[in-house]
Structure formats: structure tokens, C-alpha cells
């Protein structure tokens, strides 16, 4: 099934993207449907509820794009770091079927005026989903280009009305030892649940995204189903998967990789070619591109998303890595 995507101009600011979208909607009669050539295979996925499949599949707005070639869907689905399912790159793909994420609820609390538990369905029903093509840069120095479907994180967070004490946002992945075999690994260096965090202004940045779909389908389990964070200017491990809890907090929250090895993984973990990982260089990355071609290319500061630079104006990125 081919999807028709209305593509706004490449590299536009989100505000103007919204405008041009409205213009497109208004001019529906004379709509010039630009097929962006986005026809992905609609592989059947077992347990995904119909409403979610439909909602993701019917998304037609693309607010961010890039001229780089997309990574093949099968590569994105079979090469994952998701230690809840094992430390091998193909473990998440192999053992994803053991985890059933539906139905799903997210608990939002902490320093906010309207805390609560919200079901995935309620969270999405009032929202129009959009597609965003983002580069994903892993701290291990490989990268992909992926089309996500979802909603802007900031818009979701605002609904819960964070108060003046809210300075950071803490995120948490589900624990389900019976369905996620990696959580039973006796030699694991990780304490479950996987936790992550952002500064509030980072979380409110229009680029921060909550994805429920990938390649026009509901998110596969190994990619973080049913809902995950996507923070494209930071190393991939910041983009926490299978999100069950969000808390607004006053102090910088603990984050899993920082707890595991503080010298190697900082709280911010912005993509930065100038700051090597103690065990390898971050100056270049192995891009897993179209047709499975892998090529080493230079890495850009903030993964090329210069619009976030303002968030770190007064910070020394070497100290706050």
C-alpha cells in the first residue's frame, strides 16, 4: 500500500511547517499532492491494535525531512541496541515477540498541576500525528536515517502543566522480566528500569519527539513499541523506549548509562565529534544507508541539528558532555 505524504520544505522551522500545512489543508481542492516516494512495506504486525495501525498509517504530514537516503526498514528493525532483550544487535528482533505492549498506559507526575495516568489511545486520540525523518546517531558510532511517526514531546508535556519547580523531565522504561529476557541477565551492568532524562527546555524543544510509528507502521517492539522518545541531536541511548513513566523534577534525574559508567556517558550526551568516547573516536560514524550500504562519514555537532545550539549557549560542552 503506497502512502501519500505531504512534504513541507526540507529543513524548515516547525512554525513555518505548521503554516504551510494549514495552507495545504485549506487549499484541499487544488491540493498538489506531492508523493514523496514514501511507499513502505506494510508488514503485518501481530498484536498491534487496529486503531493504532490506522492512525499511524493514515498520517500524511511530514514536518522534518532530509535529503539523505533512508535506511532500509529491515535494517532498522534488525539492528538495535535494546538491552531489555539482550546485548546482541539482533537480540531485540529475535525476542521482540515475547513482549506484548498492549494495552498501554503512561503515568505522568512530579512537579506539575495535572498529573495522571493516560492510556496510549487517549494520548493519541486528540492529536494529529506527523512524520519526521531524523538522523539517529548511536554513541557506538553508527547511524541511520529513519522516518518516525508521532507527536511533538513538548505538546504532550504541556497538557500536564509543569509548575515552576519543574526543571528536568525524567523518563522510565517498563520492567517486565517475564517478557524481556535481558532484564534477567545475571551479568548485566544495568539496573532496571532503564531511566533517562532531559532538561525541561530540551524536552520542550520542537525537535524532541514521541514516536509511535516508523516507516508508516506502528512501532515494532524492537524499536521501542508502543511509544518512545526520539531526541535526534543526542546519542541514541537518550531516546528511551517503551516509555511508561514521565516525571517533572527539580534536580537533574539519574540516567542509566551515566549510572553504569559516568566517565563514558554524561547526562547531556549531545552528539559531538569533538569529544571522543574514552574508548573510541566520535569524529566519524558508520552510516547504515540505503540498500544496506555502510560508509564511514564525518559526524556533525548536534548531529547536524544546529537549531538546538541555543540550548547550550553558556555551557562548556566538554565539561557537560
Amino acid at each position, binding site marked *: 500500500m503506497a502512502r501519500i505524504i505531504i512534504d513541507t520544505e526540507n529543513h524548515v522551522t516547525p512554525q513555518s511547517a505548521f503554516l504551510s500545512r494549514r495552507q495545504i489543508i485549506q487549499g484541499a481542492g487544488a491540493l498538489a499532492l506531492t508523493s514523496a516516494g514514501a511507499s513502505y512495506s506494510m508488514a503485518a504486525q501481530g498484536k498491534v491494535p487496529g486503531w493504532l495501525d490506522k492512525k499511524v498509517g493514515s498520517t500524511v504530514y511530514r514536518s522534518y525531512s532530509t535529503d539523505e537516503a533512508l535506511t532500509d526498514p529491515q*535494517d532498522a528493525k534488525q539492528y538495535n541496541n535494546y538491552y531489555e532483550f539482550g546485548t546482541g544487535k539482533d537480540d531485540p528482533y529475535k525476542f521482540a515477540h515475547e513482549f506484548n505492549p498492549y494495552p498501554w498506559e503512561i503515568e505522568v507526575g512530579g512537579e506539575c498541576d495535572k498529573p495522571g495516568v493516560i492510556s496510549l489511545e487517549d494520548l493519541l486520540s486528540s492529536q494529529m500525528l506527523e512524520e519526521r525523518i531524523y538522523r539517529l546517531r548511536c554513541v557506538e558510532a553508527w547511524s541511520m536515517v529513519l522516518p518516525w511517526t508521532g507527536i511533538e514531546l513538548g505538546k504532550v508535556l504541556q497538557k500536564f502543566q509543569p509548575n515552576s519547580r519543574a526543571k528536568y523531565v525524567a523518563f522510565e522504561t517498563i520492567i517486565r522480566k517475564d517478557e524481556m529476557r535481558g532484564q534477567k541477565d545475571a*551479568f548485566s551492568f544495568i539496573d532496571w528500569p532503564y531511566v533517562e532524562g532531559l532538561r525541561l527546555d530540551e524536552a520542550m524543544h520542537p525537535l524532541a519527539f514521541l514516536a509511535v510509528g516508523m516507516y508508516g507502521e506502528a512501532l515494532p517492539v524492537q524499536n521501542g513499541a508502543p511509544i518512545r522518545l526520539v531526541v535526534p541531536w543526542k546519542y541514541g541511548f537518550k531516546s528511551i523506549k517503551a516509555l511508561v513513566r514521565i516525571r517533572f523534577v527539580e534536580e537533574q534525574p539519574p540516567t542509566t548509562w551515566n549510572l553504569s559508567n559516568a566517565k563514558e556517558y554524561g547526562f547531556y550526551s549531545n552528539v559531538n565529534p569533538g569529544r571522543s568516547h574514552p574508548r*573510541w573516536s566520535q569524529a566519524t560514524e558508520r552510516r547504515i544507508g540505503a540498500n544496506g550500504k555502510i560508509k564511514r562519514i564525518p559526524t556533525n555537532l548536534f548531529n547536524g541539528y544546529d537549531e538546538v545550539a541555543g540550548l547550550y549557549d553558556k555551557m562548556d560542552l566538554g565539561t557537560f558532555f
Partner: protein
Amino acid sequence: MLIGLYIFDPRSLGVDPIEVVLKEAGEWALRFLLLSLACSPIRRLGWKSIVKYRRMLGLYAFYYASLHLSIYLTGWIELDWQVFIEDIVKRPFIYLGMISWTLLSILAITSPKRMVRLLKKNWRKVHRLVYVIIVLVWIHLWLQSRASAGDAVFYGALAVLVLGERVYRKVRSYRAQRTL
């Protein structure tokens, strides 16, 4: 086998075939190294002829280590010498790996029968380097464990087993001498 697959159908090895062959070659080098170290304890258990294969096992270890190194140079860093120099200066796991390979190549060069005759008693001394190598190789593996130390613990246990037998024997013979 693996290399054949890589040449004819790299995709069958997964999304990043280079990463797979790199890791596999390294792991096989370690396995053969452990096997060659296991020869003497096994001989003492009664299978005397196993020692005939020790040289071959050691050379296999060197072969896989060399393969591992060439895949790193050509496939992983794509012959980028700047990356190489940075790696070798700054990254302990890279220079430990390089030192291990260099020591292993000394053992490989001194492995032919002629060299054994030439070096005479010194040959045994030179080949005790294998104990240094196994420790370095294990650290090389350990430094790369990220979320789980499963692999490093498994191979570490095997190394302790084959080296421990030697220590145990030394201690026992030392005690036996004292009681005499």
C-alpha cells in the same frame, strides 16, 4: 566459512557484516589460543598425542588474530590513518590488541621446527609469552563489555581453568619437594 559468506552474501550475516566478521575473527583467535593452552593439561590427563596439534592450534590463533586486525584496518576504520593513530595512542583496548598481535606474531615466526632448534633453550622462554598474551587478550575483550560482562566472564573462566591447572601443579610439586 564466514569469509566465504561475507564475500558471496554479506547480507546473510546481518545488518553490519563487517562488525560480525570482525567480532567472529577475534573470538576465534581467542578460542584457538585457549585450545592451544589447554593442550598441556589435556596431555597430563592422559591424551598424550594432543601435543602434536598444539603448534597448529597456535598458528590458527595467529591466523584469526591477523584476520581480525586486517578487518579492523580495512573494513572498520577504512584505512583512515588518522583514526588509526588516534586509536592506537588513546584507546587501551586497541593498543592492547596490537601488542597481543605483535607478541603472537613473534610466536608464529618462531614456530617452525628449524627455529625451535635454532633457539634451543630460549625457545621455551620466548613461548612463555603466551601467558602474557592470554592476559592481554582477555583485558582487550573485557574493556569492550558494555552492558553485560557475560562473554568476558565465560572466556575468563576458561582461561583461569587452563592456567589454574599449571599453578595448582606448581604449588603441589613445590609442597612435595618440601616434605621430602
